[in-house]
């Protein structure tokens, strides 16, 4: 079982590596990605330092370019991706089928991890992405372990990754949610999806899965054969820290119980 952690700056990266993260990922502010700009690296020199940090620790580093881009952005993205891999980066986290095709067609040799935003909910979607050249699939947050068998135990040899979600869970299907954009009129910055809202005939709140169920899902995904567990980037680093510590504990318990050993 490998722990993948998203980082927003060098301090976070150092902390996660110290605590046993097996792999890190980050985003560059100059390329749109699915999290707010403040969670991305704005300075190239910091990104270079992150690459050196991971290389020194012997841990792979991935760059998230997980949006759909206009065709004119493919060439600069491809050039940056090529430089990143040449400098030691492991590959990209990606969702745009056109960009995947463009990169593989252009001889991009790095790994391509399908973002959870690729909505790979079934084996047919997995087959499609495998043909395009994806090397690892990140499962959608709203896919249950019992529904993921066909994807995880695929014959293509694709690796799979699941969000650990114990540091945060999207109540709506990530990538198809315009709810965040419906800004609140009070307390700007407060996430809409955590609010209890007045509704006709009562109050409305989006469903958050209980923490115990999220932990059970990690064990079930692990038993199914999922090898990578991801902690997403969040604005609240203290929450991320707690997520990492809990996930490390879950990993220890699973290994002690005779689960799949981390290679």
């Amino acid at each position, binding site marked *: 079982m490998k722990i993948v952690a998203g980082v927003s700056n060098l301090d976070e990266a150092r902390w996660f590596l110290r605590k046993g993260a097996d792999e890190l990922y980050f985003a560059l502010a100059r390329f749109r990605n699915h999290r707010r700009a403040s969670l991305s690296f704005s300075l190239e020199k910091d990104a270079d330092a992150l690459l050196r940090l991971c290389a020194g620790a012997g841990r792979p580093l991935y760059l998230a370019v997980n949006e759909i881009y206009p065709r004119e952005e493919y060439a600069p993205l491809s050039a940056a991706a090529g430089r990143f891999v040449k400098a030691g980066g492991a590959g990209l986290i990606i969702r745009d089928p056109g960009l995947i095709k463009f990169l593989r067609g252009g001889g991009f040799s790095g790994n391509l991890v399908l973002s959870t935003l690729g909505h790979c909910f*079934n084996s047919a979607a997995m087959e499609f992405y495998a043909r395009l050249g994806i090397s690892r699939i990140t499962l959608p947050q709203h896919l249950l372990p019992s529904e993921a068998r066909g994807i995880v135990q695929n014959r293509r040899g694709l690796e799979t990754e699941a969000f650990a979600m114990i540091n945060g869970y999207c109540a*709506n299907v990530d990538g198809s949610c315009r709810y965040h954009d419906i800004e609140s009129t009070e307390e700007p910055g407060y996430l809409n999806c955590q609010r209890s809202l007045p509704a006709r005939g009562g109050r409305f709140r989006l469903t958050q899965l209980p923490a115990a169920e999220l932990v059970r899902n990690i064990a079930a995904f692990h038993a199914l054969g999922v090898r990578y567990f991801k902690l997403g980037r969040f604005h609240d680093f203290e929450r991320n820290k707690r997520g990492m510590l809990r996930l490390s504990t879950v990993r220890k318990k699973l290994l002690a119980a005779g689960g799949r050993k981390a290679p």
Partner: protein
Amino acid sequence: MRTPGTEYAVVLSASELENPDFGLLSRFQAVYAGDEFCQVKLPSAGRLRALRAGFRGRIVLASSLMTDKWLEKFMALVPLVRSWGARGELVVNDLGVLDRLCRRGERPPRISLGRVLAGDLSFFAASPGFKQLFGRGVRAVEIDDLEGFRLFSKVPGAALNLHYPYKFSAFSRICYLTRKFNDACRMPCRGAAAAEIPAGVLKERLFVSGNALFSDNSALYRGICGLKKPAGGAVPARLVLNSGLSRAAGCLNSGL
């Protein structure tokens, strides 16, 4: 009030599909069965046949993102829709489904990209590269906002089906009503009125229906029709009324 050149369609709820009012349905040229956001609302072959028997227009089978189990159920319905020729159509929101349909030996029925998939692919769906991968069968795009209208009206040969008067804001696989994953349920949402969250805390009024959130887009249609040269002269090929059958029929009489 009808706009020349625009086809009028209505979205049937699960309960309306169980007991279709064919008198009201006859006022529409197309009817949507199924759901773009919930796989559990996929109708049975029996329900579709009953609808076919009483409705002469186009039947559009709408589908959502799908797990393996539901994908197979959906694919089993495709031959039935194909047998209706030009009177059958699919709305597809799952890339795996789209890939399966476009790679099969037989010509797929007419396909429209659903709002989730069109949003997922956005620039790519509007690019020539998309045609190379999925060219066969994809003839239309479902839209419900101005951004979608502007993006896809530039795509040659793509008909635009505009949903009115609600646009989707978000959906979850954990149903807002049952608080459970939508793998199996008896659809307690069918026939239930959408709960309303008034504007106030949020800037927009929202409607909660089953596992999806919607907001009002009624100004959009008037806005599009009011454009002097709307994005290259395109007008919606189809107006998809999603306010329930009786209200939709009323809209046709009284104007939008």
